[in-house]
């Protein structure tokens, strides 16, 4: 793993109109790292990813990706630079087939040229998607939809993935499968910033943990360092008094 910064967020303030959700976020993700932001529901984790992707505008602060300032860029330009988000929940194209959904993940020109290679890669990670290739996305199970969403993100051939709560709504057995795949994606060299409410899922895969509360990163360090904090253990692992 190298240590050059790939994503750098400084003093980020952003929200949806009625007061900012993010209240001065500072975060750095180095190339090749898998960083996980944990925190309670409603404290700004998803908003942070949306702001990085350009879906929510920043009212203050800066975001740099690969040395370029992206805080004022349109989402499609940010994706073009190689930063792709795999959003939370069911954000598929419901009336398109699994294959069409995956191919749209390769919309950026560089990925479009390698779309066949990309499909083979996704099918090797999630063989079930090849079996379901001609099925409409709306007819898939929750787990399969999540696989399509992750596969579609991979099709973009991005150098960095932002992944929003991949375990949400999945059966426990599928959560382990999905996290194993995310770990192997990170090991293949893709930088990953992931947000998750449930710490237990990410202990084995994260290089670094950041704790987010009330719109700020309040603690950051190795998994052991963060989880050794008594308040984190009490809140997220149910350990202690």
């Amino acid at each position, binding site marked *: 793993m190298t240590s050059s910064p790939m994503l750098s967020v400084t003093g980020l303030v952003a929200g949806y109109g009625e007061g900012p959700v993010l209240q001065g976020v500072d975060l750095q993700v180095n190339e090749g790292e898998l960083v996980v932001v944990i925190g309670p529901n409603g404290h700004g984790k998803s908003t942070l990813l949306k702001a990085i992707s350009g879906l929510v505008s920043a009212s203050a602060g800066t975001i740099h990706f690969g040395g370029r300032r992206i805080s004022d860029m349109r989402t499609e330009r940010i994706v073009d630079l190689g930063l792709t988000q795999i*959003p939370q929940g069911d*954000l*598929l*194209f419901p*009336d*398109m087939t699994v294959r069409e959904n995956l*191919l*749209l993940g390769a919309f950026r020109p560089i990925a479009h040229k390698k779309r066949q290679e990309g499909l083979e890669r996704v099918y090797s990670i999630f063989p079930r998607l090849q079996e379901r290739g001609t099925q409409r996305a709306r007819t898939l199970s929750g787990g399969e939809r999540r696989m399509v969403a992750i596969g579609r993100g991979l099709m*973009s051939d991005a150098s960095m993935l932002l992944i929003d709560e991949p375990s949400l709504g999945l059966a426990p057995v599928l959560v382990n499968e999905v996290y194993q795949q995310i770990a192997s994606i990170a090991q293949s060299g893709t930088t990953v910033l992931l947000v998750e409410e449930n710490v237990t899922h990410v202990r084995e895969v994260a290089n670094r943990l950041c704790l987010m509360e009330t719109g700020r990163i309040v603690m950051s360090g190795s998994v052991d360092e963060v989880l050794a904090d008594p308040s984190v253990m009490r809140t997220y692992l149910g350990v202690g008094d």
Partner: protein
Amino acid sequence: MTDVDLFLQTLVSTVTQGSILALISIGMTLVYGTLRVLNMAQGAMVMLGGFAAYTTLQVVSVPVWTTIIVAVLVTFVLGVLTYFIAVKPLLGRPGVDFEMTAFISTFAAATIIQNVCLLVFGPRQKPFDPVIPGLIEITGAVSITYHTLLMNVVAIGALVALGLFLSRSRYGLAITAVAQNLEAARLMGIPARRAYATTMGIAAALAGIGGVLLAPSYFVSPNAGDLPLLQSLIVVIFAGLGSVKGTIYAAYIIGFIQSAVSIYWGTAYALPVLYVVILVVLVIRPYGLAGKPQEARL
């Protein structure tokens, strides 16, 4: 006329009217599906298609069918311009009811286009020759003109081409993606605003083709788009706003009602009966044939 003759005439008329209605209405459906704008400029584009073809024939001596290409190009450009002038400035504006404001702004754009044509070409109807003259006799009392056949071939061909473009091409899939889930589409790097402009261009071009095909029957005049706009509105509302499949079904159903009423009862009854049908359908099924119910507001 025998019963068989009347039936054959109704059948031919249903297919022809249905195909043309589908061609013009599908553009409105596409625009509503991607942008959530009920595009009131669609009728003006039908009229412009006719004028583009008519003007081409006045200026250069070319086969009539080539004017379809000119009409497609002119209306595509004007459709894109309508997006940039009447729709884009309203996108993402806080405190603006986008659907209602864009409905009015496209209506304003249509009125401006119509009045410019009135100034330039005058109010008189201009005759337009059939693209291919001549006819085929089916029975002694029923015949089909070559132009009618061409209307069907071109309209159905354009609809099939549109279907292939939307489902097979990279850019067509991107437009479909924007219509199905805007946020997901943006996260895939799809430039939504470029997709909006292209959609309005394509919708206008389809109307432009319709304008040339209708010109021999309805003539070329600044008001030539009024009836097609009204009929298309009925089709897309009957279909359920934004539904492509529903639009195709609705176009042929409306085409059948208009044809059957005109042939069996008389042309004067066609529009009133259509309004009665649409009223009954909307009372029973307010979201149309293939639309989805929305939450009640009151």
